């Protein structure tokens, strides 16, 4: 799949009419972005602009040659991250993705910005900060300065603005800059950010001439001091290459084309025993977390399969997983198993108090029939039930960790479902 790679003469559509208000910073930003891309001479097919919602999100329609992906509000960086993850790990890692997002979207997508920075994917975010939501009527944003007057802060903003550059630094971003849309060197800084291997963010502070200037004494020249009064800095705040890109690190850990099938553990079970089982049986095994109840039940299933039976196993435990009861429900059958629940168990195995209490909770003992085999540890109080009770000191003889295993082994012996060797082999 080869083709002639053209030398780009422009990325932005020639002579395109900018849809923005007179004096809006977005026009500067997009022209400077074009300058940066021209400077880098990246083939247009290797440039991808991902736009967010809001005025800056109109940018995709203005670029004729690069790929454009216009996304949902605040999520642009997440989509961009997905594209770059795939490009860096599954493809040739040559794509350069630039996100255009406003201050409103940046706060919605804070998580995505932080995660992209932590991952260090090759995404460049142009955060166009004009202090407000321009497209929807000038409402204040998380970037509005203190005392900023907007329709939603008519008496002045009382919430301090976020310093997103500092957040990005804390998220280990290695290229972070804050510039004015009118800075003459903006194009160069953008080129540097795009060229940076890995994540980069440039916050571009700009003026919304429609909404920011009517009630606030704000001019293009004044916005520098507004930012600085908030304790935020301008310039390239960091430019380092200490961390490898995500794709490089991932490829190191997970080299491509390992002998995939060979390394795949074949855990197939070979039938080598015969079972006398004619009907489906349901077995409930109850004990305590950490005492290998569910893994013992799995061995029962493996033994059953090796004895040409079908099986299902359901496990249950408290959400904390490491404490309280541990339960397994096993169905064994010579035929296909349809319904995977157990209404009336054919066998119940209880090896600890946690397990006993849980079975009371589930009213299991009310449902037992005279033919049910109830194997219970000798240390436990015997429940009132019709079942055929067999008690044995599993815990005393084998300890908690082996009680379930040994109880199941005894059940296999007593029931004669299949040779006990099958269970010992599994």
């Amino acid at each position, binding site marked *: 799949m080869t083709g002639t790679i053209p030398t780009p003469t422009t990325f932005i559509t020639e002579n395109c009419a900018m849809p923005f208000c007179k004096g809006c910073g977005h026009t500067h930003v997009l022209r400077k972005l074009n300058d940066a891309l021209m400077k880098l001479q990246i083939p247009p097919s290797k440039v*991808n602009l991902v736009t967010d919602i809001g005025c800056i999100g109109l940018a995709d329609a203005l670029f004729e040659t690069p790929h454009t992906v216009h996304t949902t509000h605040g999520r642009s960086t997440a989509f961009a991250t997905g594209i770059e993850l*795939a490009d860096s790990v599954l493809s040739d890692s040559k794509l350069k993705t630039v996100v255009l997002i406003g201050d409103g979207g940046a706060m919605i997508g804070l*998580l995505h910005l932080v995660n992209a920075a932590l991952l260090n994917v090759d995404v460049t975010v142009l955060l166009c900060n004009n202090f407000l939501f321009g497209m929807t009527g000038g409402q204040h944003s998380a970037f509005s300065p203190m005392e900023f007057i907007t329709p939603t802060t008519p008496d002045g903003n009382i919430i301090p603005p976020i310093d997103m550059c500092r957040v990005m630094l804390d998220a280990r971003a290695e290229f972070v800059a804050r510039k004015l849309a009118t800075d003459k060197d903006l194009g160069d800084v953008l080129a540097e950010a795009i060229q940076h291997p890995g994540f980069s963010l440039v916050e571009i502070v700009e003026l919304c001439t429609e909404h920011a200037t009517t009630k606030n004494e704000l001019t293009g020249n004044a916005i520098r001091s507004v930012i600085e009064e908030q304790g935020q800095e301008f310039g390239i705040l960091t430019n380092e290459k200490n961390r490898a890109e995500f794709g490089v690190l991932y490829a190191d850990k997970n080299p491509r084309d390992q002998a995939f099938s060979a390394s795949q553990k074949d855990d197939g079970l070979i039938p080598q025993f015969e079972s006398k089982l004619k009907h489906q049986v349901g077995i409930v095994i109850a004990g305590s977390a950490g005492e290998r109840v569910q893994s013992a039940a799995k061995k029962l299933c493996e033994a059953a399969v090796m004895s040409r039976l079908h099986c299902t196993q359901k496990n249950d435990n408290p959400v904390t997983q490491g404490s309280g009861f541990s339960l397994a429900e096993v169905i064994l059958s010579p035929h296909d198993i*349809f*319904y995977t*629940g157990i209404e009336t168990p054919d066998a119940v195995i209880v090896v600890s108090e946690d397990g006993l209490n849980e079975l009371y909770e589930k009213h299991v003992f009310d449902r037992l029939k005279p033919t049910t085999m109830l194997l219970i540890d000798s240390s436990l109080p015997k429940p009132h039930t019709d079942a055929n009770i067999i008690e044995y000191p599993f815990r005393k003889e084998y300890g908690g960790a082996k009680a379930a295993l040994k109880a199941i082994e005894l059940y296999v012996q007593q029931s004669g479902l299949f040779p006990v060797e099958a269970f010992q082999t599994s």
Partner: protein
Amino acid sequence: MNHTYVPIKLRTGNQMIAEGAVKAGCRFFAGYPITPASGIYKSMIELLQRKGDLAISSPDEISALAYCVGASLRGYKAMTATSGPGWALMIETVQYALMTETPLVIAMVQRLGPSTGGATQGAQGDVLLTEFCTSGGYTIPVLCPSTPLECYELTVLAFSWAELLRTPVVILTDKEVGMTTESVNYEQLQLLHAADRISHLQKPTNGHGKAKTYEFTRLSDIPKFAPVGGLIKVTATGSAHNKSGELKKNDAETLEVLHHLEEKIRLRKDGLAIVKRDVDPEAETLLISYGITARATEEAIHIARKQGKKVSGLHLLTLFPVPEKQILNSLGKVKRVVIAEENLSGQYRSVISHLMKTQEVIGVNKIGSMITPQEILKEVL
């Protein structure tokens, strides 16, 4: 020792969805842990990382699906897995995938809702939320396995449909299908072919290829795909757009694109229907079932027939597009249709009951635990 090797393994439905995805050529998985879907995430990490393909954790479900959309736009088959609470977060991005005609597979392992609900309790309560999550109610294909084998096979199929139709596709299971371990005979697996998306040849004229991102002639045509990063320029957008991907308001071509999004699925609905029919031509009772409840229903049919009752079964492996033709063809002499599902209002029953013009439609509904064969049998006369 002269044993015939029979490849029987112990597998959960979740594991089989992961294996099916890899079989289908899925090379990208982004995941966020949630019970009862985490088994898919874990399995995909094991299976994909071993091959050098990408399986990655995301910081939330919104990111998980957005990463998948991104990877698919870049040209790779992608999947994520979640449960109801995660699905709720993903809905915006599901709509984006639908609007941008981005192939995508989402495994939705249901648990008891609403809200955080019950993490370790199964349910069939997200049927409507899954299907009707788009503004406009566009049809999202939903496949609904009830066994580990079906989990594998329907996942392969889900990828084929997603790729060929350029649309998000959902595999809808629940905790009991996803987390129950069963003996699986791999020799019974159907060797399905997994389709790839139909792509443009990446041969540009004049250096840089031009093609409309959403080009089609007939409404039901599927636009040829071009990856972001390829030689043909992509103009993708989640806003209402014309065939070129340009944001437009109410012009004829844009409305045509919106019609096309539904028409490309609707026109193929008979081909997208998979059912298992177990018909007794004399039966006056038909049990329609799907998902975990189909297992109890099949057992109920078995018991009913042993008792000499005439009963038919129709097990739906695809819920949407609604397999109308297959349902209508199963009605025959049926006077009574019984549908068991683990939700209180009879969600799927409400979608199909209009098809039963003369039959009585009865729901067996319960939440909190699996519906038993006995509970279904009560409704079999």
